[in-house]
């Protein structure tokens, strides 16, 4: 929150005049359209690509057939590959990506810090504790939904604990919140280590793979497990866009402009927990999507949250779908862990981003 206002006098002369707000707004519309078009193209392509290729025309035909709009039914194998394997995986990638991107944008807005990330306040590792615990002790009382349910529960508990501990005197200091998140992250890491220590070999393997982040186990029940949380979170987030813009001025000025800051924080922390826990519970820890996606959009179309929130959901979905497509095709027939891939690509990009913005703008963009 204070990064931008140090040394205002020493700033090198203003960077090349950026687009005025109105031009930025039309950039935002163009980007939204481009992202939507990208998704419309990538979904059938991803559905057709893999060990059993299906031509894009056939994919569209099958889609139309199932929705009762014409088209033709494919042979049994192709139908089964598309509808039991590929489509659940694609839908899951879209939901997880949108949730992570949106959660990242919200979190950066809430903390007024463009470097905040769903992992920072410990939600990801908190959710991981529940999932790992469920796997390690072979708990199965909710069937297919056990791991997601545990992950979601512990993720929510974590974020509430962080929020309660970081509050003092009725308000939340940003620094305290982030430091508390660090402590919670360490504690969650210790718990996960403990579970691993007590787990048998099969469970350890499963946990390790889950922690790397993957969509390989996608099924329709998993999609259904995520859908309500993700849809609720994605639906609520845009309602708070204008208030998040005001929060960029700082807590007090936002309050002066009529924002009930405490309430905004509570609601948004819950929405963030909902989105992150939903994503983590089915796909493990997939980093950097929540960090890089809002960054890129802010650089392209400015920091207005009315665009940033839906835009981050769209770009997050697109990025994760592309990354998952790459993860399952570049090393065929083996499959790269998705989380490893996003971190491999995401972290150098993020370093580059940091250095570039620091140099060009004299502050964090």
């Amino acid at each position, binding site marked *: *929150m*204070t*990064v*931008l*206002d140090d040394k*205002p*006098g020493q*700033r090198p002369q*203003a*960077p090349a*005049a*950026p*687009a*005025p*707000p109105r031009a*930025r707004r039309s950039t935002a519309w163009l980007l939204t359209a481009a992202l939507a078009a990208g998704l419309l193209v990538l979904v059938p392509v991803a559905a057709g690509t893999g060990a059993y290729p299906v031509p894009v025309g056939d994919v569209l035909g099958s889609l139309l057939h199932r929705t009762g709009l014409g088209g033709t039914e494919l042979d049994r194998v192709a139908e089964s590959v598309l509808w039991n394997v590929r489509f659940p995986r694609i839908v899951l990638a879209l939901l997880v990506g949108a949730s992570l991107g949106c959660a990242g944008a919200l979190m950066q807005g809430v903390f*007024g*810090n*463009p470097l905040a990330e769903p992992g920072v306040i410990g939600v990801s590792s908190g959710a991981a504790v529940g999932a790992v615990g469920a796997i390690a002790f072979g708990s199965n009382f909710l069937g297919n939904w056990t791991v997601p349910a545990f992950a979601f529960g512990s993720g929510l508990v974590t974020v509430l604990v962080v929020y309660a501990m970081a509050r003092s005197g009725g308000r939340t200091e940003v620094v305290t919140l982030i430091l508390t998140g660090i402590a919670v992250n360490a504690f969650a890491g210790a718990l996960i280590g403990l579970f691993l220590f007590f787990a048998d070999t099969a469970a350890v393997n499963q946990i390790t793979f889950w922690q790397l982040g993957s969509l390989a186990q996608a099924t329709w029940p998993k999609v259904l497990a995520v859908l309500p949380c993700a849809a609720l979170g994605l639906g609520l987030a845009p309602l708070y866009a*204008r208030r998040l*813009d*005001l929060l*960029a*001025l*700082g807590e*007090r*000025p936002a*309050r*002066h*402009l*009529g*924002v*009930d*800051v405490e*309430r905004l924080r*509570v*609601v948004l922390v819950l929405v963030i927990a909902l989105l992150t826990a939903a994503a983590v519970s089915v796909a493990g820890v997939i980093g950097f999507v929540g960090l890089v996606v809002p960054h890129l959009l*802010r650089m392209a179309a*400015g*920091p*207005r949250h009315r665009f940033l929130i839906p835009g981050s959901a769209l770009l997050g979905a697109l990025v994760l779908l592309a990354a998952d497509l790459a993860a399952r095709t570049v090393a065929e027939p083996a499959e790269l862990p998705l989380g490893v891939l996003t971190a491999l690509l995401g972290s150098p990009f993020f370093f580059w981003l940091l250095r570039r913005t620091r140099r060009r*703008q*004299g*502050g964090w*963009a």
Partner: protein
Amino acid sequence: MRGPRLARLVPSPRPAPPPPPAPGDVLAEAEQVRVRLGGRPVLDGVDVRVRAGEVLALVGPNGAGKSTLLGALAADVPAAEGVVRVHGRPATAWSAPELALRRAVLPQSASLSFPFAVEEVVRMGRAPWAGGDREGEDDAAVAEAMARTEVTGFAGRPFSALSGGERARVALARVLAQRAPLLLLDEPTAALDLRHQELVLRLCRERARAGDAVVVVLHDLALAAAYADRVAVLRSGRIAADGPPARVFAEGLLSEVYDHPVEVFPHPRTGALLVVPHRTP
């Protein structure tokens, strides 16, 4: 405890803006207000009234409690004892959206965590009116505020690329665009050059003449003498004097409050009050 907090999660109906104040209406008042920060009494029984149509300057040495008093009037700082009333109602009884239609606050330093453009920052001042009958005034209010503070020239630049003085004027433009009847400005002239200092205080005067109440924290006593209708001198959390500049700015009082000899004399040509610290060559 649980009930009210849950109730706060449900959006309340849109608050109605206040009727325009009549000259002399008390828009904010502090009554025997005590505030403690970090165990230290910062305000120690302060009484002050802010009336529509006048500019009230708060002056005093560092740490005297000027900003805290402003914060108390803005309903930022809760009073440990005593009452702060805004538009006749205890400050704590208003909701944040209701207060936003009644008072605008300029903080001492302006910061922004994301690189919004200047025009977007000024437009944020219109947020309290969103969805109301007067939303249509938005463009006019933003344009007028930017023109008045002379920031129209860099409307498209990111706030983070501005100099300290330019930022201060943009922040002031945002506060003016809010069009609240009570303006609380914390050192609006601190980062400004001579010309813009005069500009800002002229703006304060104009707003007061148009019927608003303006409270401004100032360090420059000559500016206070020239533009304020009333000056409140603070000394260690108490009001040492409150009245028109001509009466309050007495050499004895100021020298004592600032712990430094101060000279007060009329301008040789215009007769305006000049306040100058005594300097030994």
